[in-house]
């Protein structure tokens, strides 16, 4: 039900082009546009283990939850996640002094910063009011022999950077910090040992790869304390600005002239020019002011009903068509798999066609010679390689075409509805090849009408309709919307 509502929303917005364009931005900008951050002046005492709180909420007064802000002190940097109340806690562990710190929050692809202030006073000037013992929601009943221990180790989202630090706190049954204890971190079967500091924090310095990382930690315990263990996940996200831009599409428009009777003879041209009714052609906008960015390693699926402009987009990207206005900038070498075996000469043998097609795909002669055996082996043609291509079955041609086109390790792979060719064996092989290229960091643009294939391969989807981007986002979300909209239109038609 939610989805249908969503789609209705999107369609309403279609009238309002500007709104629609905003929708196409991958990260919801509006969330941060009017973000309010409350970082009150705060006086704290040296050695006080109280926390400094920062509150965040959006323009409607709702707290911004689960978002990572970076707090930058002159000497230290924290990357912290807001909790469900939009609150963020900074552990204060600073010498006496006045501090100005920056709070950096991501806004789409950019960071914006605001300032906060903090004064740390000397502990001696601390008022004598006794430190209130923390009120643990203590449901634990203390065991007589050993004191139970537990960890404070939140799951985290953090943006990738070279060195990531992860803190966990070891506490006893009263939730008091335990100092000088040995904590074992286990990440990917590697063990890191760290001692807790006076506030009970143990630190793990490690570079985490992007994606979900599971960290296990354990405290072995001793005569007095019980053993304790647990695990947390750190989800390392990559900011778009940190990723390498591969394809930059800016305000791309494409028009085709369509005439009912095309003037392609000189006679007609002259007659029409004389009669001055040459301007009979209509213009069809196939793509209408499209902008998006694709980053390295992205696997983008392009969805859309027939005639939505998908193939035209890919053709412009591979340089076959020149857009009417706007630009596409691509970085790195492209392997366009728009049609397998395009440019094959049917009288040529498979071997000659490998060289011919390689030349069409802008490969160098030495390169083809070097890869020749590999191509023949992959295409499984065996002795047929020395027969003219006109004797090949269409599957054999596709295999050969695929084998040639994928020999270069492309930075960008543009695929238009070609993965469904060939027999099961070849399909398996080709998808294996694709997977290995994607593992090597190839950026993929895939047009397919097979939703299951898109779900399997892509991590981002762009839904085109009538030359405009209707939706751009996470694969499942877009696919679901697309499928339900397709079903929706079917139902309407049936009712009519």
């Amino acid at each position, binding site marked *: 039900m939610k989805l249908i509502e969503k789609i209705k929303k999107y369609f309403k917005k279609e009238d309002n082009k500007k709104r629609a364009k905003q929708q196409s931005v991958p990260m919801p900008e509006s969330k941060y546009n009017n973000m309010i951050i409350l970082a009150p002046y705060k006086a704290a005492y040296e050695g006080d283990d109280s926390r400094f709180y920062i509150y965040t909420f959006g323009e409607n007064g709702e707290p911004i939850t689960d978002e990572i802000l970076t707090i930058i002190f002159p000497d230290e940097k924290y990357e912290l996640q807001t909790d469900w109340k939009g609150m963020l806690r900074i552990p204060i562990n600073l010498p006496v002094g006045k501090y100005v710190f920056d709070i950096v929050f991501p806004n789409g692809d950019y960071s914006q910063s605001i300032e906060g202030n903090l004064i740390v006073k000397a502990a001696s000037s601390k008022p004598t009011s006794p430190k209130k013992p923390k009120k643990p929601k203590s449901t634990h009943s203390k065991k007589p022999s050993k004191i139970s221990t537990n960890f404070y180790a939140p799951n985290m989202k953090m943006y990738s950077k070279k060195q990531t630090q992860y803190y966990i706190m070891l506490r006893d049954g009263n939730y008091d910090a335990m100092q000088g204890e040995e904590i074992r971190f286990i990440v990917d079967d590697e063990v890191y040992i760290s001692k807790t500091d006076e506030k009970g924090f143990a630190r793990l310095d490690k570079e985490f790869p992007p994606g979900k990382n599971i960290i296990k930690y354990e405290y072995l315990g001793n005569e007095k304390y019980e053993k304790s263990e647990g695990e947390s996940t750190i989800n390392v996200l990559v900011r778009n600005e940190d990723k390498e831009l591969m394809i930059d599409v800016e305000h791309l428009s494409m028009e085709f002239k369509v005439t009912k009777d095309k003037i392609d003879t000189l006679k007609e041209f002259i007659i029409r020019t004389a009669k001055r009714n040459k301007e009979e052609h209509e213009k069809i906008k196939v793509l209408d002011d499209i902008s998006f960015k694709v980053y390295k390693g992205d696997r983008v699926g392009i969805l859309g009903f027939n005639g939505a402009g998908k193939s035209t987009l890919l053709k412009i990207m*591979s340089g*076959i*068509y020149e857009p009417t206005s706007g630009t596409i900038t691509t970085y790195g070498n492209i392997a366009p798999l*728009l049609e397998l075996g395009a*440019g094959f000469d049917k*009288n040529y043998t498979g071997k000659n066609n490998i060289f*011919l097609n390689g030349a069409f795909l*802008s490969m*160098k002669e030495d390169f083809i010679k070097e890869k020749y055996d590999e191509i023949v082996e992959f295409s499984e043609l065996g002795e047929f390689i020395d027969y003219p291509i006109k004797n090949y079955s269409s599957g054999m041609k596709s295999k050969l075409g695929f084998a040639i086109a994928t020999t270069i390790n492309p930075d960008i792979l543009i695929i238009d509805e070609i993965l469904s060719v060939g027999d099961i064996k070849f399909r398996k092989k080709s998808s294996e090849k694709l997977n290995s290229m994607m593992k090597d960091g190839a950026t993929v643009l895939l047009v397919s009408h097979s939703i299951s294939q898109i779900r399997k391969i892509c991590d981002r989807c762009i839904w085109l309709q009538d030359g405009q981007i209707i939706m751009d986002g996470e694969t499942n979300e877009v696919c679901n919307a697309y499928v339900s909209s397709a079903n929706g239109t079917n139902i309407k038609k049936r009712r009519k």
Partner: protein
Amino acid sequence: MFDTFAEKKFLLKQLVKRDLTSKYKDSVLGIAWSFLNPLLIMIVFTAIFSMIFGRQIENYPVYFLSGRIIFDFFKSASTGAMKSIKGNANILKKIYIPKYMLAVSKVCYEFINFLISVVILFGVMLVTGAQFHLTALLAIIPIFFLVMLIFGIGLILAVCNTYFTDIGHLYNVFALILMYASALFYPMEIVPVTVQKLFTLNPIYSAISCFRECVVYGIFPNIYTLSYLAVFAITTLLIGIILFKMYDKKLALEL
């Protein structure tokens, strides 16, 4: 894509090879036709016209063949370049390749055929006992300008032919006129002087007469004729390149 020279060179090589192999595909004599074709045509023309013009022209076969191979080169290369874009529509719609490379490959392919017919010409000269001259080496100069001219005309025609299919038919007729205005098989002296002046405006005639002067008569080519050819060729090439650049991006949409 096609940023380096090596990639373009390989493409050119493959395109020329494709043309060469497809030309005599399935024919029994194969590449031998490249030699036989001009030879047979020469024999036919010699048999017919040497009766009429034999007295005015010394060594008619060499006279005819020297003009004929130049004109053939011009005609087939410019026609090939003209059709190169439209003829490769199925490739250009699927793969990006620099379009001018197709025209270049056609000219290169016809140039190879031309070189073969030059061999025939020398063979005929040898058989008929014609004298060989050192100035034959100078023939490179008019041929160089001829190639420029062909490129220029080929590029212009390629663009026009993509937009208007019947340019091809029209060009056939035009080429026929050019042939008769090139003094291929008759001596220039038989046409009236006023028409002769008109003929000298024909750049192909300029190329043929320069070529004959170098190869057949053993004299340095007429400097006025040669410079006319050079100016004509360079201008045409410039116009061709500019026109092609202007329309290069739009051509794919017209296919």
